[in-house]
Structures are given as structure tokens and as C-alpha cells.
């Protein structure tokens, strides 16, 4: 009786949010493509990642898990403590095994990250202050801290502070080439201002930041990031641009990304071309690419196959690198994800790190 009551509340919550076409969204890009939604549907950040909103939490309790279990209370978690304050968090803890050629293999337990999110919304739907704090491992580190104003029609938003930059697919894996090589990932927030535009099928952001990846600004140059995405029910297409002007030289990236749902499989793709004047005496040109298939095996289980490509210098032959990943992701119950995977690196034979094997099992709790 009690469980039925809670489930009805959650379903009602989801239905209410969907029906009112308010915030709808996802945790990872493949989920967004699978549902035909924008990142802002599930996340506080319009470009995804970080704290989930009311719909995101409802989605995590209904659509994501293989089954739902009931707690002692009758209330469903929405993240909202009241009309003005929201909380959230992520904990990822791993058991890993790493095999680097010509080196002893290693295995260890570690905490990948514990992050806590707090949003204070003094004017609902219009003004919010948001903090994303990395609490572990090690001491506390601020990742995001910004104030955001949203226009009356919810079409425009303006934020200032420290935040993750808008560019490409914001996938969870920071070690993916498109995240690591571009330098735009969950370890490199930047300080500045951002304006965002949200329409029925469009989402776009323009940010001007220090270009110091969270460090202190050391010159007068600034970084400009632009991301636009056109979202349809089963496919989407987007483009990104980033230019960082520094005393050490300029760095410019441009890329295209896309997603499409074909039956039970969601395909994601991104390609970026990077021109970097900061890596040597001459401009270095690089390519990175990602192609990922996400197969919804049954409800609550996803199989992810990823192939990546990295050309560190287009003027140098035979230096290209690949990475392949196979990851099984299981949501046994709400707010809990189990992941088991392997990542195979394939690079030049002279470099052992470029040919390592990495296996992991992860427990991911979130709320």
C-alpha cells in the first residue's frame, strides 16, 4: 500500500513535469538521445552534468532502474529541500586493475570522486546560486560556483562565476580523448560569464572566461567557447567552437557532434580539430574523435562500446592513438549504478602508457 503510494507520487511527478514541458533532461548524453531530450531537462546545468533537477531525480527513480525498492518513508526524493534550496551528490568508488606493458600490473580500490551540489533559488525559475564542490579524494575543491539569472520566458539565461565550459558532448568519462585532449572536462572549470539560449529544439551557450582552466589569470587574453545543438526526438546535431588567447600562444578548437537512436541502440559521435600554438615552436594541429554505441539490453542495463581516435600532430605520421572501451552499466535500483568495464589503449609501441589495459568495477551512488 505504502509502496504503491510512493510510486504513484513519483509517477505523478514525472507526468506533471513532462506534461508541463518544463525542465526535462538527462545525466549522460546517451540518455538524452535515447529520450529525445535536452541536457537541461534533467540537470541544473543547461549543458549537463552536476546536480539533477526534479525531473532528473524522478527519471532516476522510474525510467532508469531495473526495479524500484521502497524506503521507510512515503516521500520520494526530488532534490528539493523546499521551494528555494536543492541538494544533490555523486559518489564513484572503483576497483581497478591496470596493466602497462613492461611494468608491474597494479590493482587498487579508490574513490574516483565525491561531489556535492547545492543550489539556492531565491527567485524560483529566475535566479539561482549554485555550487558544485568536489569533496573527495583529498580535500575539498570547488568545481563550479556561479549565479544564474533566467529570463521570464526561460529562453535566455546569464551566469557568472566558475563553471564547466560549453563544448561538445559532455560525457562522464574525463579520460576520453574528446575530453582529455580538448581540455574541457570535469577537472577544468573556468571563471567568467556565460549566456545561454533555450528554445524548443535549440540549445546554445556562449562563454567568455579567463582561459586558465580554474587557475589564476596570468595574462589579458580570454577564452571564448560556443556550443550550439539542434535536438529532435531521435537525433541531434551540434557544433562547438573554442578559442583561447594567451601570452603563451593561441589555441583554437572546432568540432561537430551528433547523436541518433536506432532501435535499442543510441549512437554518439564527435570529431574535433585543434590548432595549438602553445605546444611547440610551430602550430600543432590535432584530431580527436569518438564513436560510441549504447545498447539498452533490458530496462536498467546498458552496454557501451566506444572507439576513439587521437592524432597528436597531423604533421607527424604514425603517431596516432586509439582507445576502445566496453562498459556494462547496470541500474539495479534507483540512485545506484554498477559499472564494469575495460579500456584498451592502442598507441605507438615505444610508449608503454599508450598501450595499457585498464579494467574497472565501479559503484556509483547519486541523488
Amino acid at each position, binding site marked *: 500500500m505504502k509502496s504503491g503510494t510512493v510510486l504513484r507520487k513519483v509517477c505523478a511527478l514525472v507526468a506533471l513535469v513532462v506534461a508541463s514541458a518544463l525542465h526535462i533532461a538527462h545525466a549522460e548524453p546517451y540518455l538524452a538521445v535515447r529520450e529525445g531530450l535536452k541536457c537541461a531537462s534533467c540537470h541544473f546545468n543547461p549543458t549537463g552534468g552536476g546536480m539533477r533537477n526534479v525531473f532528473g531525480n524522478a527519471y532516476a527513480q522510474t525510467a532508469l532502474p531495473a526495479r524500484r525498492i521502497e524506503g521507510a518513508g512515503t516521500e520520494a526524493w526530488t532534490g528539493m529541500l523546499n521551494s528555494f534550496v536543492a541538494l544533490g551528490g555523486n559518489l564513484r568508488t572503483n576497483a581497478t586493475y591496470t596493466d602497462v606493458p613492461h611494468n608491474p600490473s597494479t590493482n587498487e580500490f579508490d574513490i574516483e570522486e565525491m561531489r556535492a551540489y547545492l543550489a539556492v533559488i531565491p527567485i524560483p525559475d529566475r535566479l539561482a546560486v549554485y555550487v558544485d564542490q568536489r569533496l573527495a579524494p*583529498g580535500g575539498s575543491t570547488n568545481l563550479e560556483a556561479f549565479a544564474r539569472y533566467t529570463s521570464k520566458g526561460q529562453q535566455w539565461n546569464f551566469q557568472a562565476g566558475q563553471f564547466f565550459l560549453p563544448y561538445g558532448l559532455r560525457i562522464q568519462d574525463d579520460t576520453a580523448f574528446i575530453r582529455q585532449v580538448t581540455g574541457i572536462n570535469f577537472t577544468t572549470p573556468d571563471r567568467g560569464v556565460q549566456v545561454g539560449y533555450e528554445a524548443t529544439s535549440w540549445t546554445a551557450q556562449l562563454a567568455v572566461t579567463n*582561459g586558465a582552466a580554474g*587557475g589564476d589569470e596570468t595574462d589579458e587574453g580570454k577564452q571564448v567557447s560556443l556550443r550550439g545543438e539542434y535536438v529532435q526526438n531521435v537525433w541531434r546535431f551540434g557544433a562547438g567552437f573554442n578559442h583561447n588567447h594567451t601570452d603563451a600562444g*593561441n*589555441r583554437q578548437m572546432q568540432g561537430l557532434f551528433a547523436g*541518433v537512436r536506432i532501435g535499442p541502440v543510441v549512437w554518439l559521435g564527435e570529431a574535433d580539430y585543434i590548432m595549438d600554438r602553445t*605546444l611547440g615552436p610551430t602550430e600543432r594541429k590535432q584530431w580527436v574523435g569518438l564513436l560510441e554505441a549504447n545498447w539498452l539490453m533490458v530496462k536498467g542495463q546498458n552496454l557501451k562500446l566506444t572507439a576513439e581516435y587521437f592524432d597528436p*600532430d597531423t604533421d607527424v605520421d604514425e603517431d596516432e592513438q586509439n582507445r576502445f572501451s566496453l562498459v556494462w552499466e547496470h541500474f539495479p535500483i534507483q540512485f545506484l549504478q554498477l559499472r564494469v568495464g575495460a579500456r584498451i589503449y592502442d598507441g*605507438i609501441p615505444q*610508449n608503454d602508457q599508450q598501450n595499457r589495459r585498464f579494467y574497472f568495477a565501479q559503484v556509483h551512488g547519486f541523488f
Partner: protein
Amino acid sequence: MRKAKLCALCTTCLLAACAGDGRGLDENGRPLGESSGGALQPDFKSIQDNVFTPVCTACHAGAAAPLGLRLDEGASYALLVNAPSVEVPSMLRVQPGNPDASYLIQKLEGTAAVGGRMPLNLPPLPQETIAVIRQWITDGAANTMAAGGSANSRFELVQLTAISPARNETVSAPVRDVVITSNVELDTSLMQSNLIELRASGGDGSFDSGNEHDVPVDAVVRSDLPTVLAITPRVAPLAADSYELRIRGTDPVAMADLQARPIDGDGDGAPGGDFVLRFTVEMAQ
């Protein structure tokens, strides 16, 4: 639908066939002869070639380097040795002679108070590798690159960089010294010619209102190759105020390197011009 799946699978296979075979390249993926790594030794060039470049620059390179820490060749030394950590500003990333007090070692060993162990999300460096870096620091953390970085260095001008405080920074912690680095070795004998002056604004944040006053300073050379200067107020820490540090880059006597090339202080791409650093101190104690 079947056609689309086939197309995607073909694309995946194409991607998979693209890894380089490494012919004509060194272990860092650079053409042979461009740099030489060799076995890891406790000297900076060897550590750069065997650790920083192949491992750390996967993230810590270029304009997008996390926390501004670039470990690519030509920038790494100036941003490591005697440079304060961003995460724990009271610690130097590398304190010559003291590996235990060097934040770099703490980050590599996973004992730092803030953030994760480096390399992030990768296996830790072998203990033997960390031991070599420790030995390099114990030995004084000398720069064994050629002056001005390596042969690949882009530095053609003599440039200064404000490490701490940064340019236009508002500092909420006590400031006991101002750390400036050069991209080359400076002729530090010139410092006897009163090239460096520090002025306080007098409380109004302006430096042309007539109420400024000079703050007596001493300049200490913390390291050479490239030169790291610590400019220390004789009465420290600095009182809460706005400050302007000026290092002369124009006649009659200009700061210059060992080849007598004046600094490009004003950053206009040509030798000459004063280096001016302005910052504000909010807290004196």
C-alpha cells in the same frame, strides 16, 4: 535501419585501424632527433622527456592546462620550481632541496590535502620514477635545459611572468613576497642598479593621485635557468592597499638577460618597456 547499423560499424572499424606504428618516432611520439629521452635520470631534461611530456601533458599542456599548470617543454620549469601551488598556495610546487615539502611530490604520491592523486584517473607513477623526481628536487631542482628552455623553446624575447600575486589579483591572504619568473636567465647583477620598485597607492587604488609611497624591498634570486625572483618587502607582510611593482625595461639601465637583451616588459613583442604588475592586498595579517 540495417544499413545505418552497418555504416556505423564500418566507421568503428575504420577508427580502429588508425593507430600509428611509431616508425621514425621516439617514445613521446615525436620525430627522432627532435628530442632525446633516454633512461630516466634525476635531471630536469630527463624528467621532462620521460615523465612530464609523455604522461602529464596529456592534460597539463597548452592554454587549457588544469589550474594553469603547463608541463609542456618550455613552460614546466618556470611553473614548477619555487612556484606556489594553486590548490595549496602556502606550498611551492617544487621546493629545491626539499621533496617532502614540494607539492608536486605530494600530488604524485597521493598525500596532498586537496584534490586527487596525479596522474588523475591513471595508474600512479612507479615508485622508482617518483624516487628519481625526489632525487632531482633533493639535488636542488636545477634546470638542465639550455637557457631559455630547450632548443624547441618558442621564447625569443626576454619575458617576465608574475607568479604570485598574479596580475591584477586581489589577494586575501598575507603577502610576504612577490614572485616573478623569467623565461631565460637574467643578469641578476643588474639588480644592484635599483631596477625594481614597489609602490603603494596610498589607499585610493590609484597610482597617479600623488599620495603614493615607495615600499622598500629586497630582491632575492631563488633560482637560475630560468631566473626566479622573490621581491620581499622589508616590512612584511604588506599592508592592505593596492600595489604597483615596476621592473625597469628601458634606459638608462634595464633588466636584461646574460646576452644583454632587455626584457620585453610591456609585452609589445619588442625588447624594452617596463614590466608592471599591479595587485591588491585585502588582508595584512
